[in-house]
């Protein structure tokens, strides 16, 4: 079983797919929560992710001037705070005025925000590509030695291990928040039925703030993980992530964070595995069409089961 074939499959398709899936999952959590609680598709989410990565880069650069070499995961903490502020500010000035009117107005506003944030990032940081850490990431030696001993060589760079660990920690923290804390339960209640939640005395404004904060943390993490994975910051990366993240949110069911995690992993794996030579020697699907896989899954879901796998909300 574990021959050259399995080696190639696991190391070059399965693990990258899981990494991508983790990133999509984190982004989709924010999208599905805003979609479920505020009831609109936030087009600016990808751009917020991207700006989070840029802010992290800035924190690292500033620390670099001071002679400190920060790991992106450390620099992410102050950046997350800024992203949360950005989310809350955007909500206050651009989304809140439309809360009482039709939801499509908010979608339009978020579409405008997408362009404003991207242009702002381009004005501030310029259109050129940046990077956190230069050079090729070496596989983790301990892991590859250990797995080589049992005959299953795994080549996983440290950055991927960090991404896996970070995602697992965030998802566990999120499930603790949603299941054990008051605000988390309130968030789920508002997502299920805003009117009923309001009647029972839940402070909807507070819930909305909490949603942005959770979304902001997940978005920054997703942005930073993405940059750690591809080792490159560009201003279009947020937009590129948008479609797979929406596909993940719809696949898992709108308003269902676990669904979003599951959907993200499925979309990430599907994108990577679609390029695997399942039949013959050529890739099943040209790697250029990876984004198309996410879209195809989304379209099929919209036709067959618009409420998603986990019985989310369907409008």
């Amino acid at each position, binding site marked *: 079983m574990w021959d050259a074939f399995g080696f190639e499959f696991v190391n070059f398709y399965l693990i990258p797919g899981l990494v991508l899936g983790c990133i999509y999952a984190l982004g989709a959590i924010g999208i599905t929560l805003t979609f479920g609680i505020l009831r609109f598709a936030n087009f600016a989410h990808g751009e917020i992710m991207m700006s989070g990565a840029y802010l992290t880069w800035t924190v690292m650069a500033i620390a670099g001037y001071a002679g400190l070499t920060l790991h992106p995961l450390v620099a992410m903490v102050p950046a997350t705070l800024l992203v949360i502020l950005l989310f809350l500010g955007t909500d206050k000035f651009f989304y809140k005025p439309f809360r009482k009117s039709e939801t499509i107005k908010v979608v339009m506003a978020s579409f405008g925000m997408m362009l404003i944030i*991207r242009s702002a990032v381009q004005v501030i940081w310029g259109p050129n590509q940046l990077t956190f850490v230069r050079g090729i990431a070496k596989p983790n030696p301990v892991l590859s030695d250990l797995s080589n001993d049992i005959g299953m060589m795994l080549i996983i760079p440290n950055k991927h291990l960090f991404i896996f660990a970070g995602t697992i920690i965030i998802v566990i923290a999120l499930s603790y928040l949603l299941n054990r804390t008051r605000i988390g339960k309130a968030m789920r209640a508002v997502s299920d039925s805003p009117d009923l939640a309001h009647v029972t005395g839940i402070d909807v404004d507070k819930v909305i703030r909490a949603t942005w904060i959770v979304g902001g943390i997940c978005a920054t993490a997703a942005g930073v993980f993405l940059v750690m994975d591809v080792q490159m910051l560009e201003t279009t990366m947020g937009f590129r992530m948008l479609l797979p993240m929406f596909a993940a949110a719809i696949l898992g069911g709108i308003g269902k964070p676990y669904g979003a995690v599951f959907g993200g992993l499925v979309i990430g794996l599907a994108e990577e595995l679609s390029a695997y030579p399942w039949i013959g020697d050529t890739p099943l699907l040209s790697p250029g069409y990876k984004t198309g896989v996410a879209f195809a899954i989304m379209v099929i879901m919209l036709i067959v089961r618009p409420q998603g796998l986990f019985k989310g909300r369907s409008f």
Partner: protein
Amino acid sequence: MEAYVGYFLYFLSLLTVGGIYAIFALGLNVNWGFAGLFNVGIVGFAAVGAYTYALLTTAESTYHIGGFGLPLPFGMFAAMMASAVIAGFIGLICIRLRADYLAIATIGIAEIIKLILKNETDITNGPRGINKIPRAWEHFSEERFYTSWPMSWFGTPENWEAFFDTLPNWYWQPLFAGTILLVMYVIYRMLERARTSPWGRMMTAIRENEPAARAAGKNVTRRRIEAFIIGAAIMGLAGSLFAQHLRLIEPTNTFDPSKVTFLVWVMLIVGGSGNNRGAILGAFLIWTLWSASELFITGAIDLIGNIFSTLDPSILQTRAGFLRMMLIGILMQVILQRYPGGILPEVRPASPKADKKTAGTTGETT
């Protein structure tokens, strides 16, 4: 004299591009203004129209499929049809769902179209794009047109060559601008007719109160798909005109969503959604602002470059372009919040049976 020609040509190019954007905005107005369909895939329909036109009308080429050298009007018609077919496909899937899903689906299909254009190098020449796209009126002076059928009836190639040599090299520009404005006017008249017709009033009813329209026995889904397809067909036509204007199209920079989709949205929102005249006004206004600000920015950069000689003007140039995008975005947000109706708010069409005194001569009430 030369300087005046320059200004004249600048004015004409404003009219040309403004007119193309106005056609885009009219198409979007059918989607959003009439039927309330949130289409953010304008760039996709534009690309389909442009590529259909380009592939059908260019001369035989080794870089991409065909170059079928078909007549220009046929290419434009095919562009509309191709766009309409794709819109029909999306419409059938997404129109019964809520507006947000349509938005996601249209933005997705736009990206997929661009992916296909980028990856199918055998058909579209991939990222290098298609060039030498014939532009209406200018194409007469190309050899393959004056040596072939209708033109070869009227004169020998030598005669035609001599004739085009006597014309100034911008002779086509007023004619091209005029053609675009004519197309725009025809579409405008047709849409005005559609808007005041029972069909248009039904669209308004569906948009404003879907359950009531449904209860009144209107086929809501079908009407929406119709509006979506018509809007997309107009966008496809505008895309083919865009290809003619540019003469060189490629998938990434030509069809940048922020410069096509977003700009057209801002034009419609500023001009007034639901109002065809508003769409045209918004398109010309925003396009004039957009291109005038380019001159202004260039001037400002020269000034700054002279004062702070340490700064690299090319960096300022690219960043100023992004700043302009950001300001346009903020303009849209302000209009959306403060003046949701736009400059020319929507005028509701009245029933022809309504009181003629209050309805006025055009049959409209405010």
